[in-house]
């Protein structure tokens, strides 16, 4: 990683590897503390992490509104089940 630094006992590359687990709240207390210490002391990683979190949040928000399944989905399934051999067991 370009301009790699070690802050809080972690290199920028190590923080990058842990970033998704950190954003998902899946690091244990010690690992989370080390990442946060690095982020406090490294502007580049703090900015990158913020952008990654914002991108994932934007993805979630953008796709939250989605089309509902049209009625024909259930109708087609019912028709297929009508003629499926298993329905006649």
């Amino acid at each position, binding site marked *: 990683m370009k301009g790699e630094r070690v802050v809080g006992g972690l290199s920028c590359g190590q923080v990058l*590897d842990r970033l998704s687990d950190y954003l998902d709240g899946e690091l244990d207390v010690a690992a989370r503390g080390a990442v946060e210490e690095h982020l406090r002391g490294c502007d580049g990683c703090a900015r990158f992490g913020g*952008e990654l979190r914002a*991108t*994932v949040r934007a993805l979630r928000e*953008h*796709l939250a509104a*989605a089309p509902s*399944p049209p009625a024909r*989905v259930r109708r087609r399934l019912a028709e297929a089940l009508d003629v499926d051999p*298993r329905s006649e067991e």
Partner: protein
Amino acid sequence: MGEAATEQVETDEELVRRTASGDRRAFEQLVARHEAPLYRFAVRSCGGEREAEDALQDGLLAAWRGATTFRGDASAKTWLYQVVVNACHRRHRRRAGEPQDPQPMEAAAAVAAGESGPDARVAAREVGRAIDAALAQLGEEAREVLLLRDVEGLSGDETAAALGLGLAAMKSRLHRARLELKERVEAALGHAVEEVLP
């Protein structure tokens, strides 16, 4: 007291057990509970509503026919995602030899020439178009892990089970997919997302 108040709500797993014994009504109840998120996933994963309808149909029929193989290692919800993921895979494979959909490049170009301005809604629309373009450009594996974990909100274990992966492999795939999404969205926008959204 009315019937609705006294009627016990069956769990998904009970409905699968009844489905396995050939109870079509139980299967239709199960479908009614889950078809909306499954359809939403299929639309995004397959890249269109018509393809999604076909994949959902294939997947649900596979679930009906394969209900006897449900072992309960994962939840019924995860199992249903699994069958729809597999149906989407089959459709992707079938389409692999067909001409590529021109949408990704067109969408990316539309973003590059897109609106700009201080209004937050305009900015959100611009980001939305960049996300659509980026998702269309991602590989199938990256797209589906993002959709299951980050959009549908499945847990890590559920996402891993739906994709037939171990938890560590799923996490690794998710992380790579998020990084690629970020890179592609920024390429389409010309700047990072955080600079746009408040």
